[in-house]
């Protein structure tokens, strides 16, 4: 794997830090007029998702991490593992709940999502930005209310709970932004 020096640290670069794969978010060159130059780096641990700040002396280097984001189709969950497939090669991957994490509540069979692979094994799963899911549980709304003010909780077929306007009913399909967990619209 390639080795990257602090001057090559850029947002998105994947490197190994303390034996974990990480993604650089931000790199700031800090140098007093008279004094040592540092790189102050904001970096995300791709295993834990945690963002930390680290400092390197200018010229230090880190080993690159073999990390790739791959579009895959979510096949099914068997209770222990979730299964994914590369649509072009039909190659299958399995990931446990710890790796899938919060993405689980947005994953519907056959939907596409992004699987991050580290050394060809799943490291993290990111759902599509927008998903269309069916409401399976919600209080009956007040007829005629179209303002959407206030809203009510609704449970979706994947188990996620989102706030929806009062006029939206059980059985309807809605579009949700998975990054914020917010209701966008009804799908006709």
């Amino acid at each position: 794997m390639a080795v990257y020096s602090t001057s090559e640290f850029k947002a998105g670069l994947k490197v190994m830090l303390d034996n974990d794969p990480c993604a650089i978010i931000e790199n700031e060159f800090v140098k007093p007029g008279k004094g040592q130059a540092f790189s102050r780096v904001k970096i995300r641990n791709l295993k834990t998702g945690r963002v930390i700040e680290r400092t390197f002396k200018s010229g230090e280097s880190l080993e690159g991490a073999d990390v790739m984001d791959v579009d895959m189709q979510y096949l099914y969950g068997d209770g222990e593992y979730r299964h994914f497939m590369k649509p072009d090669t039909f190659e299958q991957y399995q990931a446990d709940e710890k790796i899938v994490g919060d993405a689980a509540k947005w994953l519907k069979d056959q939907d596409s999502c992004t699987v991050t692979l580290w050394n060809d094994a799943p490291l993290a799963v990111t759902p599509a930005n927008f998903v269309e899911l069916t409401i399976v549980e919600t209080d009956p709304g007040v007829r005629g209310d179209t303002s959407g003010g206030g809203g009510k909780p609704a449970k979706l077929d994947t188990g996620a709970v989102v706030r929806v306007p009062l006029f939206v009913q059980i059985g309807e399909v809605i579009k949700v932004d998975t990054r914020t967990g917010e209701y966008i619209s009804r799908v006709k």
Partner: protein
Amino acid sequence: MDWQPSCSIELLQLRAQTLQKIRQFFAERAVLEVETPLLCSAIGTDPNLDFFTTNYQLPPKQQTLFLQTSPEFAMKRLLATGSGSIYQICKAFRNGETGRFHNPEFTLLEWYRVGFNLSQLMDEADELIALLFARSSLQTTQRVSYQNLFQQTTGLNALVFSYQDYADYARSSGLIDAIAICKHDHVLWLDFIFSHQIQPHLGQNALCMVHGYPACMSSLARNNQDNPAITGRVELFINGVELGNGYYELSDAKEQKRRFDKEVAVRKVLQRPDVVKDERLLAALEAGLPDCSGIAIGLDRLLMLLSNSATIDEVLAFSISRA
């Protein structure tokens, strides 16, 4: 092709107006504008500065020349000749320095005042900043000593190195990398803690002048007469941005030579490129540098602050990526 400038036309105008005001300021004070070479046969020995070199072809000979990292040495040679107070607006070059606040080629305003001590020069710098920032209504200028600032912010004594105290502070402040990077290097610890914990908070909408730097951090400043552990060095900050550096200038040729030789030795240990120390500067100091103070201000950063720009690229016609 990204042939267009990285700054706006308004910024070109702001730069031109700022240069005009600066020239007016010094004209009113009878400070002489000078030009000195960018190509030099000798260069500063600071182990933390990387320079550009180029080949001067003079067949059958050729000579390595340096692009200046600062006009300081040449200007001191003018001072030693009896130029009186002088200023210069010029390019300086520092290899490998690229970032939000750095471009490897940048513009400096540097001036020297014969007969001024550091506190008089600080007054003048304060006046110039007030003039240039007239419209941004800065708060009252703050003056604080490096030692007090360090003590207040970290509880540490900047002048006396205690590995245990410094390491304890790093652990309790989440500076997990400081211990591995700085080891037992006092100056490195000071740089690390200052740039991470102190500098970002200096001069909130105000000019902050930090003076009395530890002697170990100032290779061209005169030692303080009452306290040899500190020097006549000042740094200027606004909104956490380092804007300038000034000295009560060292005029003792022997002491200067000793400091150069020490830095040359440090460069050897760190395996940095060889330098040619400036014998002409030493000869000028030997001949006699008048009592003076001098300061350099980064004009590009000044423009960043005047225009609230987030990056130095936004104030440069063509930053290094488009040069």
